[in-house]
């Protein structure tokens, strides 16, 4: 394949600006890495509290991503295929969690599902308490992370059109079979990148989790909360926070690299 670098298509000032931007992104992370040494890092990362937080983070983020996929794909399909005007009316509500401060999202969830909330009261009567449980962590993560998946998949569905689905229908396929065998494979790249964004957002989720699920070790203290606790907590040294933060960065990078490799195959 010929890969020509044609002069005159990309402005010359793009390269220096891009380099500065990269530096701006990398510098804080390098500063973080320079703040600690290997011994502290190993000690902090292998501590039971850290392993507990990482396990909880990965578990809840994976669960939240799976739920986002199951709930978000149908929503994306509806927004892409329903009449344009209706979709335009509904889309802002889907995107709202993206623009709200996560703290507000947590507050909203608490008011809905808390003991005195309209739904929470009803759940409490049935003996179900959501706030400050691991389930609450997952709910908070789904709430803030799902829009990434919906936006990504809806865009792909719109740009691909429904020609393939129409052909599948004329071949006798029922709607559910069409979605499973034609629609999902058609938007698979967008779905994959949407899932990745969703997982990354869930993994880093802090504000809504802190508000709605609290910060109980083992049940709701995910990595971001553990970092916050280590940094702010009395008697705990800040090196542990740095080490945990680095660990989270490494996990995020690994997930992204793994996904990039998979999608190239």
């Amino acid at each position, binding site marked *: 394949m010929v890969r020509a670098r044609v002069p005159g298509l990309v402005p010359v000032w793009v390269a220096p600006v891009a380099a500065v931007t990269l530096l701006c992104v990398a510098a804080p992370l390098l500063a973080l890495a320079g703040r600690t040494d290997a011994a502290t890092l190993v000690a902090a990362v292998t501590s039971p509290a850290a392993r507990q937080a990482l396990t909880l983070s990965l578990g809840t983020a994976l669960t939240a991503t799976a739920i986002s996929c199951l709930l978000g794909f149908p929503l994306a399909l509806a927004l892409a295929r329903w009449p344009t005007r209706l979709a335009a009316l509904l889309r802002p509500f889907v995107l709202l969690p993206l623009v709200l401060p996560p703290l507000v999202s947590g507050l909203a969830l608490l008011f809905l599902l808390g003991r005195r909330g309209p739904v929470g009261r009803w759940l409490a009567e049935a003996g179900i308490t959501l706030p400050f449980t691991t389930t609450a962590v997952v709910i908070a993560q789904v709430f803030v992370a799902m829009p990434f998946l919906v936006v990504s998949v809806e865009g792909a569905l719109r740009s691909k059109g429904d*020609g*393939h689905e*129409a*052909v*599948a*229908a*004329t*071949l*006798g*396929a*029922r*709607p559910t079979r069409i979605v499973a*065998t*034609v629609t999902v*494979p*058609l938007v*698979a790249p967008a779905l994959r990148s949407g899932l990745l964004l969703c997982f990354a957002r869930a993994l880093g989720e802090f504000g809504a989790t802190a508000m709605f699920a609290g910060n109980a070790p083992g049940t709701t203290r995910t990595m971001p909360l553990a970092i916050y606790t280590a940094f702010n907590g009395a008697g705990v040294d800040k090196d542990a926070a740095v080490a945990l933060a680095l660990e989270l960065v490494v996990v995020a990078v690994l997930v992204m690299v793994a996904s990039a490799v998979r999608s190239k195959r």
Partner: protein
Amino acid sequence: MRDVRGRSVPGRRRGDGAPDSAPTTETPHQAPAGPVLDARLVARRGALDLDVPLRVAAGEVVALVGPNASGKSTVLQLVAGLLSSRDGWVVLRGTTHAGRPPDRAGRPVRPTAPYRRGIGYLGQDPHVFGHLSVRRNVAYGVTGPRARRRARTDALLDELDLVALADRRADQLSGGEQARVALARALAADPHLLLLDEPLAALDVRAAAGIRTRLAAALAQRRLPAVLVTHDVLDVAALAERVIVLDRGQVADAGPVAGVLGQPRTPFAAALAAVSLVAGSVVDDRFVAESGWQLPLPPRNDPQAAPPPSDSPTAPDRPTGQVWLAVPSDALSLRPAPGGASLRATAGPEAPWPDRTPDAWTWDTTVTGLQETSDGLRAEVAACPGLAAPVARAWVVDRIVAPDARVRVRVDLDRVRVYARTPG
């Protein structure tokens, strides 16, 4: 499992090149009485006000032609159930799939989903399922037990020469190969009716010719009825028995291919048939165009004068009153006029034609305009507006058609056709 179309309906004409026998393993059933499709497609979409009656008999291929935005694709989408409308009706093999036909009582039927209609659809974009192999694309619409599915898929792969490609991913194929996959996939689902929405338009000339031949053979073998939307007279000639000309959502002309293209009554059909169509009247064995120019007509009862097709409603006698004059483009020619002062020497070796003879009429005139058509340039001339004579591109380059250039236009009188303007 779907029923198989009957093959015992008489009176069907099919184009040349179709194999005689149908090598299928299925038992022929008796065809249901009446047309395969009886529909009236009524819809309002933007500027389009569509109202088209459409009947397709068993084994019949109907071509739907017309200018852009005349509603051809909308007709197909309404038939397939990919669009729904409150008005009109769609009856397939006796089952109402939308609306209420006039001969039935009760409330209009809400449009059924496309997957219930058993109608195949082949569009300009083959829409192959890129993530699947060619084999799994073809097998997509095949129903029944595993052994039958496999046998049917194999038969279709073989019929369309896809065996060598069977395990390739469909998105790795060329456009022509993808079109073959789409055709095999549509046929494998065993539809009662095939809708063809310019399936050859996006292909290059060679690939289109290949698919056209296969399509004609496949339709003939199965006696599969079809509705074909096209802009190409080759498709009409090779595939269709009947033509419907649409214009702004209404039927402008309809009938057998020979009639509609041989005696066109719409500018679109005339352009499709490469015919100059002029409105006028017959006065004393002369054609008088509405714009005033005249052309002598050969004597009556000359068998070559205006051969009406046997199934045409036009009487064999020369019509009188309001008529159409149809001049095939190859009955018209254009050369330098004798003694044309402004002609360049490079114009060509041809000597000017002799003056008017009993079987040819000429005018010495000037070119007023040029048209680009799908098979070459046409020149309009001052003497006989409405007639467009083929002109070689090289002549244009040589400025032979400069405004002051005198040219001689010649009409072969035994090729012109004159027929009544109101269909008999």
